[in-house]
């Protein structure tokens, strides 16, 4: 470990005002830093040291959270970790002051009990420094810092904290660095002009260019202000421009010096999902030779090496550039587009050979459900076709919103069959990527009577005979008198009025029964008939219009399968 003061940012000639502090006398700054590290009365964010009086004050606050003023003899040391408004890795040691979720919902204070009763509290987890309502990651959530929210309907949510990886922290320098590594996917600087000098459009604006790069669709990509970013694997950071004629353009960001690959020996074996594997195995688990990454034959693909300089897509070596469960490659076998590779594991265990999943035998359960199964609390976890259920708190292979947060009373535990949305019977999402959900392999408790879905009262299969839609071309009612009160002539009759065009024979589909009013020619004014009055050949009838049909657009009565192909 280097000098203890390396972890601090030094500022000469300033003093900060803070209630929480402790006084010591030390001979130098290092000893004072040791006092700060050892402080137990509060989270020490830094210290003040006075050279003349050799005073050491450990501080609970820093320049981010309190007032600063000038003091000739004092030197302020602040722990860098508390200055960073960005996270390293999953942000377990993030100590910034972001206090709203990525949707912008203010965070609930960790010490408060409402609107949500927290599991993580400052008392229970002192080391997590759950201060105020700042985003934190006390449980090492892989998705980064989060907080309980002040929205009663949302118990917790994640925060949009930019990554810090690759930044070189210089003492006294602004923590956001003006250079980029690789293709700049992790660039967080504030350059906001393109290579040709055009001003960048704000990411949260849709003018002059509409786009889908919104915070909602690209969380965690630090799409802030109008700063150049690379959220989509471009060659380098870019932005939409304020010029109506130029939709987007690259920005010129200087490159930082490259870092060596993160894993030393590890690169010849895999740990975790092998995303840092840099070995030279170039054959898949089934024995196919890998296709070179810089070739588009036999398989066209988007993993173009110079577009992803940090993914080391060299030659045809197995790699894991996209977070798969293990390294893979496109194959030279035209019928096998891509396959996993078998790579020795770094911890000496047998390599993870990607066997084809064998469907587990469906567990025969003798359980049953009452009514429509909303109250079912059994442990059945297979569908009627024998597919295994996906766990409710998992979003893979199927993303969904049936979570215990949204359905707290539905007992969505494990992957047990449940009926959180009052469907006809218990169901679950399946682990089969091609089948989103299915009903479960359960019987109803009072016999095996198949439950037919009740028909909503407002839907009838037959048109209402007493009124007409639009021009009434489908009218099949029995009104047989014109609007003026004349009786209608039979359609099949030729007296008193002879007609040969509109007859039951010539218009079999128009419902020309007896002498009922009809609209065989789609007359815009609605149904009519020939009359029995010799002086009047035909007249309109007076049929009331039906009320507009009530329906909810986009809502099918039968739930779609939603099969999605990967």
């Amino acid at each position, binding site marked *: 470990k280097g000098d203890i003061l390396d972890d601090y940012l030094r500022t000469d000639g300033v003093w900060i005002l803070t209630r929480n502090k402790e006084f010591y006398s030390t001979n130098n700054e290092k000893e004072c830093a040791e006092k700060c590290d050892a402080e137990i009365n509060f989270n020490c964010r830094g210290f003040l040291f006075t050279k003349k009086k050799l005073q050491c004050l450990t501080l609970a606050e820093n320049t981010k959270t309190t007032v600063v003023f000038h003091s000739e003899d004092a030197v302020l040391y602040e722990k860098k970790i508390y200055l960073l408004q960005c996270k390293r890795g999953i942000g377990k040691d993030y100590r910034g002051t972001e206090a709203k979720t990525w949707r912008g919902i203010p965070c609930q204070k960790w010490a408060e009990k409402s609107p949500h009763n927290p599991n993580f509290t400052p008392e229970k987890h002192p080391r997590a420094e759950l201060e105020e309502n700042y985003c934190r990651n006390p449980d090492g959530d892989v998705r980064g810092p989060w907080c309980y929210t002040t929205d009663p309907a949302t118990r917790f949510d994640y925060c949009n904290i930019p990554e810090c990886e690759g930044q070189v922290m210089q003492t006294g320098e602004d923590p956001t660095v003006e250079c980029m590594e690789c293709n700049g996917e992790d660039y967080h600087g504030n350059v906001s002009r393109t290579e040709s000098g055009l001003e960048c459009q704000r990411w949260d604006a849709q003018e002059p260019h509409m786009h889908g790069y919104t915070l909602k669709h690209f969380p965690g990509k630090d799409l802030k202000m109008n700063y150049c970013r690379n959220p989509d694997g471009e060659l380098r950071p870019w932005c939409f421009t304020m010029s109506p004629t130029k939709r987007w353009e690259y920005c010129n960001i200087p490159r930082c010096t490259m870092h060596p690959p993160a894993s030393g020996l590890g690169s010849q074996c895999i740990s975790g999902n092998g995303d840092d594997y840099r070995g030279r195995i170039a054959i898949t688990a089934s024995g196919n030779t890998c296709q070179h990454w810089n070739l588009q034959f036999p398989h066209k693909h988007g993993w173009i090496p110079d577009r992803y300089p940090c993914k080391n897509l060299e030659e045809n070596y197995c790699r894991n550039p996209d977070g798969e469960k293990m390294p893979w490659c496109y194959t030279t076998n035209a019928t096998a587009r891509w396959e996993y590779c078998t790579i020795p594991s770094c911890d000496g265990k047998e390599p993870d050979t990607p066997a084809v999943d064998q469907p587990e035998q469906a567990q025969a359960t003798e359980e049953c459900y009452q009514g429509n199964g909303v109250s079912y609390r059994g442990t059945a976890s297979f569908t009627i076709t024998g597919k295994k259920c996906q766990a409710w708190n998992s979003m893979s292979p199927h993303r969904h919103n049936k979570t215990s947060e949204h359905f707290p009373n539905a007992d969505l535990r494990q992957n047990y069959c449940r009926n959180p949305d009052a469907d006809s019977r218990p169901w679950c999402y399946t682990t089969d990527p091609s089948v989103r959900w299915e009903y479960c392999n359960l019987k109803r408790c009072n016999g095996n009577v198949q439950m037919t879905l009740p028909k909503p009262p407002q839907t009838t299969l037959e048109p209402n005979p007493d009124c007409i839609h639009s021009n009434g071309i*489908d009218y099949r009612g029995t009104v047989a008198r014109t609007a003026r009160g004349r009786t209608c002539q039979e359609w099949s009759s030729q007296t008193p009025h002879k007609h040969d065009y509109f007859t039951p024979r010539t218009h079999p589909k128009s419902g020309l029964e007896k002498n009922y009013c009809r609209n065989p020619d789609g007359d815009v004014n609605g149904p009519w008939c020939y009359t029995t009055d010799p002086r009047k050949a035909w007249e309109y009838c007076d049929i009331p219009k039906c009320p507009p049909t009530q329906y909810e657009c986009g809502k099918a009565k039968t739930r779609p399968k939603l099969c999605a192909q990967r």
Partner: protein
Amino acid sequence: IVAGCISHPHSWPWQISLRTSYGLHFCGGTLIDPQWVLTASHCLEKSSRPSSYKVYLGLHEERALETSVQKRDVEKLFKEPHRADIALLKLRSPAIITDQVIPVCLPKENAVLGGREECYVTGWGDTKGTPGEGYLKETGFPVIENKICNRPEFLNGRVKKHELCAGNIHGGTDTCQGDSGGPLVCLDQDRFVQHGVTSWGLGCAQPMKPGVYVRVSNYIPWIKSIMENN
């Protein structure tokens, strides 16, 4: 639809089958109102006479023998005036709303559809030998931002601002001939909204060649004015 799966019967009740006057299916379409159907202009190239077309609703099988089937004549055709591949059909009489016939929702004007939104397409089109011929099929895949879709290795600048891309980068599933005019819908809360009209593609289900759909949110004003004035 290439790959994907056979849908649950009538789980896409806005899907319609556009047919010749003698009942041959040749394009899809979407019921957006009891008397209005949205489809693609290029489906109407064969003839500009409304009587050449029929609209079938409430069907699951292409044979259309179910009791729930409703058949309607077309009263009038409206092609988008600036040659976008979208058109409206006015039915001679409104469809009857049943469990098997329900209109889809339309998006807000200029609604933003981000990359990676999971959307679904349906149709009775060519399956390229995958199972399900003759049944209404469905498949789902993410929307791909135009900026990415226009990259050289994808559709290389062919996609226009009023169009959107959707598909799997590895290919494998897609819409195909006979699905044109049909809906691309995305789930919004608990209902489906039609964001696209199936329009064109370079082959079907090819890697790096997503399908292209007309961006419906661009044409909400046009759709509204046609429906209100006719």
